[in-house]
């Protein structure tokens, strides 16, 4: 049985390892979020915004040509069709309503690929709240379109210049901002990481994905459970949402796809489930890439959204307990999958999402299986990278 304890642990992973400066804020959220999620008025507002603003439910699409290629039955959960182009907005809608309930006047966020930053800037514009997004200086370079979008939406993008200048460092900077502004500011974490209750709260906001898959699949195939669900994992928010209502349905295989960069053993990787050991990152006890001395190792992936040295505590537990299977995909495998999906189904996926598609080459399945791939985001933000490598992969 997969569940979270009162103190925020999934098995041995989770908890809230935070400095005293953050204690009142995190405690305030912990005391509020469950009650809020159960509150009918919240649910009404949340559901209405998901429908009228985000465009939910997102379609579940039978990808016939892809199914033909892999000789099985593949459905795509089209989170790329959400407003802002990725699943991230499901969570930011939920958290902006939380911020309003807490009376917060300013919003901060971290972002890797920029999708969470855009989704946060978007809901801040919607609610008229000022927004500061921390983004690694390296990621600002490689995800320019999203930086421009955030600016146009009225957010201030602040570069994180410490460490590897990617998602981990952006998260450190956002935490420091929150320590400096504890009373008026809410920190919208974009993934199922961070101190309890963030991993659980973000997973609950994203769980709308698997809630919809259940009834959509039932309508399409007559049964609500697929045989496999495949999702990419950086911190793991889209995977958490796609797995959520299937966590305790043991006949559904959960496939968590990590980015192995230049290869798991290359030294340039973000394959946390194999390279990571148990420790603490961003307030949570989980698997992370670190030296024997406990210094966090800078990860690498072509995809800014998967370029993170940790993994959400729920995923650490799912993988260690054997409930989920981890698959590792290199930069090149992801690129090949992206070009293939574009031509085969007319869908250009985000680089992060392309890793999930590449997993089809690596896993065993039956011809009769029903496979759901969570198509977590669209690839507009990655066009520069795709164009750069186009010739190599498309001769």
């Amino acid at each position: 049985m997969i569940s979270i304890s009162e103190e925020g642990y999934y098995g041995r992973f989770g908890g809230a390892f935070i400095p005293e400066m953050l204690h009142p804020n995190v405690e305030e959220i912990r005391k509020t979020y469950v009650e809020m999620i159960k509150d009918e008025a919240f649910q009404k507002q949340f559901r209405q915004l998901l429908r009228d603003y985000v465009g939910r439910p997102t379609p579940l699409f039978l990808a016939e040509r892809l199914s033909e290629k892999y000789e099985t039955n593949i459905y795509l959960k089209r989170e790329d069709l959400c407003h802002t182009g990725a699943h991230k907005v499901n969570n930011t809608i939920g958290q902006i309503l939380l911020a309003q309930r807490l009376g917060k006047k300013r919003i901060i966020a971290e972002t890797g690929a920029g999708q969470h930053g855009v989704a946060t800037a978007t809901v801040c514009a919607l609610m008229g709240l000022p927004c500061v997004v921390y983004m690694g200086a390296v990621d600002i370079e490689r995800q320019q379109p999203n930086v421009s979008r955030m600016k146009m939406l009225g957010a201030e993008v602040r570069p994180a210049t410490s460490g590897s200048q990617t998602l981990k460092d952006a998260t450190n900077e956002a935490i420091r901002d929150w320590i400096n502004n504890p009373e008026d500011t809410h920190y919208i974490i974009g993934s199922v990481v961070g101190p309890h209750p963030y991993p659980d709260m973000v997973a609950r906001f994203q769980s709308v994905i698997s809630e919809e898959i259940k009834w959509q699949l039932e309508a399409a195939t007559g049964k609500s459970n697929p045989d496999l669900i495949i999702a990419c994992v950086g911190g793991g928010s889209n995977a958490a949402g796609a797995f959520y209502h299937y966590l305790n349905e043991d006949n559904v295989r959960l496939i968590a796809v990590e980015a192995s960069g230049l290869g798991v053993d290359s030294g340039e990787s973000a394959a946390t489930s194999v390279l990571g050991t148990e420790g603490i990152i961003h307030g949570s006890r989980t698997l992370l890439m670190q030296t024997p001395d406990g210094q966090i190792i800078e990860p690498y992936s072509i995809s800014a959204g998967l370029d993170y040295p940790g993994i959400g505590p729920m995923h650490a537990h799912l993988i260690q307990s054997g409930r989920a299977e981890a698959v590792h995909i290199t930069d090149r495998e992801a690129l090949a999958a992206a070009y293939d999906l574009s031509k085969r189904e007319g869908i250009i996926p985000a680089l992060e999402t392309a890793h999930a598609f590449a997993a089809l080459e690596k896993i065993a399945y039956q011809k009769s299986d029903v496979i759901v791939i969570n198509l977590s985001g669209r690839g507009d933000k990655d066009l520069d990278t795709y164009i750069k490598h186009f010739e190599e992969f498309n001769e």
Partner: protein
Amino acid sequence: MSRLENTFNNKNKNLLNVYFTAGFPALDDTETIIRSLSENGVDVIEVGMPYSDPMADGPTIQQSGMQALENGMSVAILFSQLKKIRNQVDTPLVLMGYFNQVMQFGEEVFLARCQEVGVDGLILPDLPLSVYEAEYQDLFKKYDLAPIFLITPQTSEERIRKIDQLSKGFIYVVSSAAITGNSKEISPEQLAYFERIENMNLRLPRMIGFGISDHQSFSTACKYADGAIIGSAFIRALENGKEDLDKTIKTFVKGIRNN
């Protein structure tokens, strides 16, 4: 009686705690810095274990930590340096670091080693009070180490009382809602907060830290507590005066004490 208790029993005004990052400016400066701080009458020495992701620290301490890691500093090296120094100085030594460093060393091995090399207390900002109480309290007692917890302007009275019960040595009073290295002038709101804490008549001595950078802020803080903690300002002094550490440290401490 422990060195920390002794220090606070003998003196309850104007105690000066100076923080430095081990391995900065150079790997082997630990001994010189501790000896020199001690000779210049610093009451408590806080030794930072450099960390890749120090979430409660500002840019000055972050950069000193990155430099220290580049210089090759590790927890094991630090312990062996401290062991040598302990024979030469009697000043209480408090280690400051992040809980992951302790976890990776092995919690009990780490605490045992602290006792062996003469460390008196530990400041681990991201070790939550509840986890300490449930899992580590007995080990801290076993190895006679003082757990030193932080309180902030947002900490509730109930929680401060609990921290006062669970801590040993002293309570670290974080001067404002901020990371380290912020050196704005002390505001009326901060003074009201210091007064509020002072009037709680806590069991333990209080040391005010974060944003204390010079004689003026030090002496203001000392009016409301047993003493104060200086970190980033000292790191900057070391950076600017690394050619002659003894002279730099003497001048720095003199400047803070203004005598």
